[in-house]
């Protein structure tokens, strides 16, 4: 009975260990670090207005609008979500450690919502992050930053382009951003998935 319990515990631990990082990374192997930091490059040009058609999928509903993101300083970004008619829904700017809400609809003026939104936007736009581990697999490589309480995974394809960022808290994924059609001008498509509450934000670049 004791052996059975120990076996079950070991299997559970293995399953937990396997689930506490992105699935695509499971067959990657630890390799020596080839860099000390990594940055999300797709919102780095402070002269560019990154304009996207945004579709939010939440609780079985789809709503669309426009999202414009801009790097406004060395470590500061601003994002404004509007309707197609130009009415603001959310206007927020942030640094690595804080944020300011310039405008938010009453339904969005809740700290727990804003905290999550800003955390996701911060993850999506990036900044430079120190990395502590590197893994390599057949599809590309992964960098890991942070600690177990708040860990970030950066997935690069074989061409060296960043295609996925995933944020974990205590071994549970909180949110991820997948970058598509990436190039020097940025990412043409992005998909952000948040776990709790569960919603998906899809972005399609406009004006390029």
């Amino acid at each position, binding site marked *: 009975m004791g052996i059975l319990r120990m076996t079950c515990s070991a299997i559970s631990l293995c399953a937990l260990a396997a689930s506490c990082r992105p699935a695509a990374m499971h067959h990657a192997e630890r390799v020596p670090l080839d860099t000390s930091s990594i940055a999300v490059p797709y919102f780095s040009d402070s002269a560019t207005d990154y304009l996207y058609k945004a579709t939010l999928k939440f609780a079985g509903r789809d709503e669309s609008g426009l999202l414009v993101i801009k790097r406004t300083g060395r470590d500061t970004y601003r994002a404004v979500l509007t309707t197609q*008619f130009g009415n603001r*829904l959310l206007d927020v700017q942030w640094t690595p450690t804080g944020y300011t809400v310039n405008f938010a*609809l009453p*339904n969005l003026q809740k700290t727990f919502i804003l905290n999550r939104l800003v955390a996701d936007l911060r993850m999506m736009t990036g900044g430079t992050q120190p990395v502590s581990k590197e893994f390599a697999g057949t599809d590309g490589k992964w960098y890991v930053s942070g600690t177990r309480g708040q860990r970030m995974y950066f997935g690069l394809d074989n061409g060296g382009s960043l295609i996925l960022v995933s944020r974990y808290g205590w071994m549970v994924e909180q949110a991820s951003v997948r970058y598509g059609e990436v190039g020097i001008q940025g990412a043409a498509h992005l998909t952000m998935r948040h776990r709790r509450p569960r919603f998906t934000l899809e972005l399609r670049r406009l004006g390029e």
Partner: protein
Amino acid sequence: MPSGLNVLKLLTPTLCFLLLVATPAIAQADRKKMTEPEIASLQQSVAVTAKNIKSLTADFAQYKHMDFLAKDMESTGKLVFKQPDKMLLQYKKPYNYSESYINGKIHINDDGKKKDYDIGNSDVYRTVNKLIIGSVSGSLFNTGEFEVSYYKVGNNPVAVFVPHDPNLKKYMGRIELTFSPADASVTQVKIQDSETDFTRIVFKNRVTNGHIEDDVFRN
């Protein structure tokens, strides 16, 4: 998306009515308050112009100006209106998105994805409805829902509408209509979000009182 979005959707037909007639925007210059006789004359002229419009089609360009952006967000499309209450607003570039308003419902076509909203009996809708009727009947300036002030910029009359309703005020702090001195048609609409940010809509290729099939609004 928050329920406030529905409020914004309700505002769209109002804005379109306010844009019944538009020509290229005029440059802003110093403004001076209009006299009482000038205000009365403008209101009468607007009523006559609005009364004569049974249908309208126009192309439009929309510019969203935000101070921190390098350039305005620009979109273009087409507006179709037919008395008494049919409206289609169709964005074509840089995305396909259209909304039509028929019988108290909003029909949305978002790049092929279609859905309907029931406008219902909300206070905001009632306000908007008054505005629509007011703009068509010429009693726009007397709805009581807005504080209206009048100015002249050069020869062009400008009416500034500030909503009394704090709920409405969250979505549009101020609306400025600039009229043509020739026929009291609206030449520019500017919806001010803040002191520095606004949305400006310009219409061109306007056709009034042409025949428009109802199918156009089936979006």
